[in-house]
């Protein structure tokens, strides 16, 4: 019961797998072709709205093979169709090509994934931390970062009235 989009994706990218859960289709593409998959979806299938870019750290997940799973959620404003495209990246150097040239909204979303997970986006114009201060060193949403933190709060530089 697959949709035309999924059929086209499977034909064009032989390494892509797809499945459906609760009415939502997810396609899993290898990291090298993720930009081409997203470009095809945007240009040819009309998925012009990038809904979200997020990441899941599968370190503690049962039966996990790869560490990070990047998720791109797309929507088609004409037909209201949605699709989730995922790819897996691994340590030590998780890197994926940036989609800022396809959707300008990806700019801040990718910065947040970099900030929270440490996944580097190749081709991003300005990849720096967005929510956490620049001096922060860890990537907190990773599973090996504790909930209470590693004590960074106590080491923030304090600016006195004289300096500021």
């Amino acid at each position, binding site marked *: *019961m697959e949709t035309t989009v999924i059929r086209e994706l499977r034909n064009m990218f032989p390494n892509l*797998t*797809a*499945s*459906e*859960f*609760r009415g*939502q289709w*997810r396609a*899993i593409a290898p990291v090298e072709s993720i930009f081409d998959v997203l470009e095809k979806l945007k240009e040819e299938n009309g998925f*012009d*709205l*990038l*809904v*979200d870019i*997020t990441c*899941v*750290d*599968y370190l*503690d*997940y*049962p*039966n*996990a*093979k*790869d560490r990070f*799973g990047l*998720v791109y*959620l797309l929507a088609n*404003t004409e037909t*209201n169709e*949605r699709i*989730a495209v*995922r790819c*897996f990246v691994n340590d030590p150097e998780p890197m994926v090509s940036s989609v800022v040239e396809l*959707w*300008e*909204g*990806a*700019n*801040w*979303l990718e910065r*947040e994934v970099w900030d*929270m997970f440490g996944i580097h986006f190749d081709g991003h*114009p*300005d990849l*720096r*931390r*967005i*929510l*956490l*201060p*620049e001096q922060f060193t860890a990537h*907190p*949403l990773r599973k090996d*970062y504790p*909930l209470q933190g590693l004590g960074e709060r106590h080491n*923030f*530089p304090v*600016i006195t009235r004289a300096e500021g």
Partner: protein
Amino acid sequence: MPLSIEPHTGDLAHDEPKSYLWTMNFGPQHPATHTTLRLVLKLDGERVVDAMPDIGYLHSGFEKLGEYLDYNQYVTVTDRMNYVSPMANNVAWHLAVEKLLGIETPPRCQSIRVIVAELSRISDHLLTLGAMGLDTGAFTHFIYAFNPREQINDIFEALCGARFTNSYTRVGGLMYDATPKAIEMIRDLLKQLPRALADMERLLNRNRIFVDRMKGIGVLSREDAINRSCSGPVARASGVARDLRKDEPYLNYADFDFNVCCAEEGDCYARYLVRLAEIRESMKIVRQAVENLPAGPVNVSGTGPFFGEKTHSANQGSAENTDLSPSEPRATTHVILPDKQAVETTIEGLITHFEMVMTNRGFETPCEEVYCATEAPNGELGFYIVGDGSPRAYRARCRPPSFIHFALFPHLIRGHTLSDVVAVLGSLNIIAAELDR
């Protein structure tokens, strides 16, 4: 915290010959930034040449908390995201959880959730309109807008005991049913709200000062709105006729008759008018929902076919199996706490209560990932939940409309004057708690 932003490749104004440009810090502590945002503005006299947002002042690790809190406990955290419309966030979170579990709530619960979501939409839009007026100097408009919000907060208090941080929804239902007194209060609100809206409109809609400050300021074109992932009133005011309540109806919205409010200009005035029109549409929905409120239970009943058998292996979705539909019901699985009467008088009720509440027990969830979006007052609020079998989410990602809209800000403000910064910021309705999570 840096005192100045280092130059980066997006910084147009950092050339040597332009040393006459003046850097000004706007925020994070400022009465006109809605809560803690910081903008570093590069000014040429009064014209803004560039604006560099610096966010994260309210970052509280909500997404990390989602991995340690139960599905019913996390709703308290979602309250604190978009805190001007907390019920909408609660509804969005539990819709996503129920989608993961495959539960359909009874019709009465859906109608009440629609009512509270629309009341929060009215509340949020009233606050935005009031703040738009306040930032441009109209203090009376602010008071006109906040008066009905007091009534809405009283209604929420009658429904669940809390004015603001409600946490009203639960997995499979609601915390308390709606009492007749609350319904009466909603009817009173619907009688008195048009008067307040008329006051607000008469004051500002054709006010020369307000219109001059808002018209033509911060124009967002339709292509830009889609390219930059806008949604909600910000996108609708630019001509993107997309409203999740109509396009992908959830809860009971398909049963109600209402219009989607759009505009074409995409400036601040258009966003003001769209929000004003949306309040009227929300009133229509609440009126229809209250008059046709179905009777019946408000919580999903204890045993029901939620999800498949226990032998579901967790996979990262790479397998081709599509037979993840619910199969055998598990006879003793509950997702909603049993009635207090049953807990205190029957042994099954007591055991079920403890099974659900104790730390390493609770209901089982499928090892799957799901995304569910609702039309929150600010835009498309979606939750991407990864379940791992336990009653805690493995990853609870909130797709925050304010975060995505704040990225628009440098694009919208270039070339405008300093006084327009406040107007544009107000029209985007940036809630810092949702921005930073």
